[in-house]
């Protein structure tokens, strides 16, 4: 009877223990069930939403309280603003996780009938863990290509964009067609809105495009939804109308222009008869107007030498010359004299018809006589030297006047035959250089030439003047031909040049 008692006691004890354990485990299970489950963080473009699941046994509403802490700071736990004593099963921690380079831990406190349960999230760094995208994609078709425009999504941070945070972003494109799928990546952008072209596509084919954006330290991304477009066919068909129209327009304009020109007479289709006046042009080259031959009369040249007069001039001028200092004035006067001499001489040569044969240069008296006689007998006029007049003008005066002045002057005049080759010319300033003959002229005769030419004077001997020895004024030598001296007319002239 005692032994069965003894057997019951351990059994009872065990049973009791079992009951205790059962209730305890039961309680544990209920507590586990009742506690919130699966704390997850959904973060997209820096919008962070913490969500959880409620426990099974929810007879009494459960209140939740969320706290968070920034790991890299020295601060303590903080309460999430909108998630204190909430019955919702999520919490928006966007504003709380404002330092995106930091790491955060979220703590969920659930107040149930069974007690308070804590659940913490793992370390969360918005910079590294938030999902980027999806970007906004726009497609336009082109022949054998697609033009893609991508706009980055907005960020749930104050006055910030994805480029502000990450500086540079990588984007990859997925192109799908009916038979194949292709992904292109390793492209970088630092713009909020950018575009690019997908080339080497088939014509007239349907393609679907998706774009994803990632950062160097954040590989989480949400790609954009597939957008489909059909690539264009070749440009020929559609654009063919434009060249045709432009060609037609150009030809029309040309036609109008041609018609206008024709009407205006600028273009002639038929060649009309030539006017009579123009008919002669054909024969013009043949019918050269031959002028009447010039009547040439032989004139005997008479040398009339108004020697005294000239010499007087020479003397006067010499005196003047000696008195004056300037070279130029000397030269001028000399030239003047020479000019006068020559002119008078020339004139006398050309215009005096009465021939006086100048036999010898020495017979001056003879010449005077001759001149005197000539003066009386001459029908022609003699040229007169006017003292005060510019020697460029030699006038024809009536013989009476000439006779008056000339006769007296001519008393001392003589007629000379001078061989020009023996005549010496020199610049009075310089010493005699016997080698300088008339053939090689001096500077005086330069202006002489100008003088003579002015008056229709055929200054043969002086046309060809060598300027090479001219001092001061001209640096360059004027090349003149060697004077061709004709003895007949020049000998007397050269006589007066000589000083």
């Amino acid at each position, binding site marked *: 009877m005692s032994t069965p008692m003894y057997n019951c006691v351990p059994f009872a004890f065990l049973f009791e223990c079992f009951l205790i354990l059962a209730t305890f485990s039961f309680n544990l299970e209920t507590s586990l069930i009742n506690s919130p489950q699966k704390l997850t963080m959904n973060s997209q473009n820096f919008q962070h939403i913490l969500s959880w699941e409620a426990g099974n046994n929810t007879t009494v509403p459960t209140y939740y309280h969320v706290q968070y802490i920034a790991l890299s700071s020295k601060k303590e736990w903080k309460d999430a603003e909108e998630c204190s004593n909430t019955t919702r099963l999520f919490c928006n921690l966007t504003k709380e996780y404002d330092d995106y380079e930091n790491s955060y831990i979220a703590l969920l406190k659930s107040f149930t009938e069974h007690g308070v349960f804590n659940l913490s999230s*793992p370390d969360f760094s918005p910079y590294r863990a938030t999902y980027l995208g999806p970007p906004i994609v726009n497609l336009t078709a082109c022949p054998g290509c697609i033009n893609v425009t991508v706009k980055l999504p907005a960020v749930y941070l104050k006055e910030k964009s994805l480029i502000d945070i990450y500086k540079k972003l990588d984007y990859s494109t997925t192109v799908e067609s009916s038979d194949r799928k292709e992904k292109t990546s390793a492209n970088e952008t630092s713009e909020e809105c950018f575009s690019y072209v997908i080339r080497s596509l088939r014509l007239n084919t349907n393609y679907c495009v998706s774009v994803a954006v990632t950062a160097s330290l954040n590989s989480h991304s949400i790609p954009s939804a597939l957008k489909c477009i059909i690539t264009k066919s070749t440009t020929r068909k559609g654009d063919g109308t434009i060249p045709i129209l432009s060609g037609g327009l150009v030809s029309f304009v040309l036609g109008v222009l041609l018609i206008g020109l024709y009407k205006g007479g600028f273009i002639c289709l038929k060649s009309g008869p030539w006017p009579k006046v123009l008919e002669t042009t054909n024969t013009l080259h043949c019918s050269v107007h031959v002028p009447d031959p010039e009547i040439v009369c032989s004139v005997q040249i008479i040398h009339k030498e108004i020697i005294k007069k000239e010499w007087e001039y020479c003397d006067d001028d010499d005196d003047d010359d000696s008195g004056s200092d300037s070279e130029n004035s000397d030269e001028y006067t000399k030239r003047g004299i020479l000019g006068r001499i020559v002119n008078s001489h020339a004139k006398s040569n050309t215009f005096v018809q009465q021939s006086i044969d100048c036999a010898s240069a020495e017979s001056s008296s003879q010449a005077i006589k001759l001149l005197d006689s000539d003066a009386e007998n001459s029908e022609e006029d003699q040229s007169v030297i006017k003292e005060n007049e510019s020697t460029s003008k030699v006038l024809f005066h009536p013989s009476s006047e000439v006779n008056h002045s000339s006769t007296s002057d001519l008393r001392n005049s003589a007629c000379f035959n001078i061989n020009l080759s023996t005549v010496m010319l020199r610049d009075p300033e310089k010493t005699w250089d016997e080698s300088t003959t008339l053939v090689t002229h001096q500077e005086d005769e330069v202006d002489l030439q100008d003088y003579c030419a002015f008056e229709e004077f055929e200054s043969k001997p002086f046309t060809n003047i060598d300027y090479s020895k001219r001092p001061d004024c001209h640096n360059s030598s004027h090349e003149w031909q060697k004077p061709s001296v004709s003895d007949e007319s020049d000998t007397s002239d050269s006589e007066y040049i000589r000083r």
Partner: protein
Amino acid sequence: MINRSLLPFSLMLLLSSETSCLDCNRIHVLQSKMNSKSLEHLEKMGGPFPFQCLNERSAFKATDILKVRLAQQENAKAAIQQILQELFQIFSKNLTHAAWDGTSIKEFQNGIHQQIEKLEVCLSAEVEKETTYPGNESLLHTSLKLRRYFQTVRHFLKEKQYSRCAWEIIRLEVSRCFLVLNILTKRI
């Protein structure tokens, strides 16, 4: 005999070609990729931050590295070099108390070492240029700041006797260093 000498010779050629193929113009791309990998290894080393270590955060008195005035583009390479070398030195210390994943630690260390090597190849050509550069003062200033920061890190670890919490706090700081490295790499 030819075969014996040929093998090391070819190996040497292979290795030298790898180093000589380094394109210094594209160094920023390579560095960026390596930064990302290193940071992944760092995060894989350990689990979530232990709650018990939260109180010890206040013991770490260094200035925020992200707030350090960073060098301009010309000095970015030198700054990157300095940071990487300091990190390598830190992770060569006693990590037993940290109780982290050994493989991840090794991978992290190798990654840092490679980054240092590759950068040195491209940096050596520019050292002479930088010493005469007028921005030399800012380079020194940045260098001093970085040196001071890492000195504080080493001191903190030593003080805490390389405890787990100390390492976890330093691990957080190192992850922030990589954000700085990333910014600097983009400037190259």
